[in-house]
Each structure stands twice: as structure tokens, then as C-alpha cells.
């Protein structure tokens, strides 16, 4: 049973496993990454499969940036300034991020923003 006012607290659920029903939206697919590959090649297969979803997320973040700064300056800052930071990041992460940008076609600044989002989001 559920209280019909926020925070909509439910009685403790039981029998939810194995996952099914309206709270389950699918299992997560498995991939293997070979750490002996050059860093910029490690994520290629995953990104090949997830390219459209990455591009869609990047567009949603762009729309969000434009909502905050309609002039487009924020987006310009990401695409022009962030790539200057890439080689200050520790190896091999900087190389892996470059490889992901190349494989996905998402601009390097936006791929980098995705990877430092935790620190940026605290703003």
C-alpha cells in the first residue's frame, strides 16, 4: 500500500526479485574491455553500439545549457575551452576520452564534460 501524498512512502515491498513488472525496465547488457588495448581503442565497441544514445544525451545537455544561457555562450565555452583541459587529465583517462569522442562523433569538449560532470554538477 502507498501513501497518496509525498513522499509516497510504500509499505516495504516483497517478492520483487527476480525483477519484473512496472518498476523493471530491462537488464543491462554485458561488454568486455581489454585493458591491454591502447586506451583510445578500449571503448570503441561499446560506443559503436551506444552512439545514438550518446548523441541524444549530448543534445539534451546542449538544450539544457541553452535554456540556462540562451546566447549559446555556455555551449561555445564547452566546445572551445574544455578541449584545452584534456591533456591536463591523468593518463589513461584523457586518451580513453579522446577515443570515445572519436568513436561517437560527439565533440571532445562535450565528451569531456560528461566525464567531469560530477565535479561540474556540484555548481
Amino acid at each position, binding site marked *: 500500500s*502507498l501513501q*497518496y501524498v*509525498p*513522499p*509516497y*512512502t*510504500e*509499505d*516495504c*515491498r*516483497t*517478492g*520483487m*526479485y527476480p*525483477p519484473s513488472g*512496472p*518498476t*523493471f*525496465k*530491462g*537488464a*543491462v*547488457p*554485458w*561488454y*568486455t*574491455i*581489454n*585493458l*591491454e588495448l591502447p586506451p583510445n581503442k578500449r*571503448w570503441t565497441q*561499446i*560506443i559503436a553500439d*551506444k552512439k545514438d*544514445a*550518446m548523441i*541524444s*544525451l549530448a543534445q*539534451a*545537455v546542449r*538544450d*539544457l545549457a541553452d535554456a540556462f544561457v540562451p546566447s549559446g555562450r555556455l555551449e561555445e565555452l564547452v566546445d572551445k575551452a574544455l578541449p584545452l*583541459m584534456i591533456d591536463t*587529465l*591523468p593518463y589513461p*583517462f584523457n586518451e580513453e*576520452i579522446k577515443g*570515445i569522442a572519436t568513436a*561517437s562523433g560527439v565533440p571532445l569538449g562535450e*565528451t569531456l564534460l*560528461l*566525464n*567531469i*560532470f*560530477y*565535479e*561540474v*554538477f*556540484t*555548481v
Partner: protein
Amino acid sequence: CTSLVAEDPHGNLIHARNMDFGLFMGWDMKNHSWVITEKLKPLLVNVDFRRNNNTVFKSTNFAGYVGMLTGIQPHVFTLTMNERFSLDGGYIGILEWILGKRDGMWMSFLTRSVLENATSYAEAKKLLSDTKLLAPAYFILGGNRSGEACIITRSRTHNLNPLELAVKQGRWYVLETNYDHWKEPLFLDNRRTPAMKCMNQTTQANISIKTVYDVLSTKPVLNKLTAYTTLMEVSKGTLESYIRDCPSPCMPW
């Protein structure tokens, strides 16, 4: 986010988490959902990181993100991280970085380095406790022996009030949402109390992957920000992840 590590009566450790992300980044009125959370779900992948054809660690990732938020070094340790809010936040760390002061570590690169290179729970705990960070965070770490689990509450420079499992004193699980464990959570966002209520109702005798999944499926521990649930058992070396949805009525966070 809600992360927890529980010890069953046989000394096995179960580490589980709800990843909640996308707050205030666009609300879809038509579908009653967060725009970014829904864009992240199709990007979910489980990754088996290998060297010499042996598994080094396994993780649940958003494709395109090279850092780690959820992972297991099979039979050694398990690690999740939850977001911590502090005025001394990541933007200060980024500013310092841009100005050339680069003695701190980006949070998700630290968790990736720990999962890839640490060789024990003790070593992982030391690295997560002592490495200077660009942003505050909660690290929830489980080991591979009875009693080995802790919540590491990190400011950018310090480890604050570490909380350890203490089964003999009755603390058979540790649970972290997004508030310091020694303070009350924000009343508008109290997922800790309902989660603990359900853990206590389950009791240690009945704790398992199944009953932990039940706890993480109970509103508001499950909410509109929940992208995925992960269940890990270090003794078996297993990691399972499931994409989630929270049918209305459901808390936005």
C-alpha cells in the same frame, strides 16, 4: 542514490545500490520523468575489464563515462559512490585545477584507479580515505571478510567520521543516501528512514540479494531519479544490474 552493504548470518557481504541522477536537469511534463535520467538509461552497460584475459574488475557504467560509480573486484572488494553536497564543492576543485593547482584527484578517476589497481579492501579503503579530491563524495566500500564494510564520508581534503560495520554491536548493515550519517537527512528528501525501516523489517536472518532488491524497490528509495539498481556479492564475484522505472505516483527524488 542509496547504497548499502549488509552481512548475512554466514558472514557473506551483499553490496547494493540505486543510482539516482539527473536532478533539476529538465522535467518531462508529459511523461512525468526527468529528461537526463531517461537519456542515461539507454547508455547503461555492464563492463568486464580484463587483462591477460583475466577479469580485473567489473562495473556498471554509462557508456562514454570512463570513471567508476559502481564496481566489484571479484572476491576482493566492492565499491559504490554517492554524491555529497558541500559548499566546499567541485567548482572550487575545478577552479584550482584550471589555475594549475593539480594535487587533487577527479572523483571518478580515483574510483576507477582503485578498482583497477588496489589489491585488497584495506588498500582500497586507504586510497579512498586519504587521496585529496576535487569534490566531496561518499564512498561505500565492502570487503571479502566478516565485518569489512564502511562508509567513507569525504570532504575534498579529509575523511570525516568513518562508519564501519559492527555486527556484534548489532550494526549488520551500513546504508548511505546523500546526507552525512551523523546528521538528520533533509526532511524533503528522507530516503534513509524508509530504507532502514525495510532493512530492519527484513532482519539479518533473511537478508539476501532478493530481499535487498525488495528494499531498493520500495518508494521513495525507488524514485523518479533512479536509473538503475545493482546487486553485488563479493564472495561469488557477481554483479547484476537492472534498469528501473518508478510508476506514478512517485517522488521526483
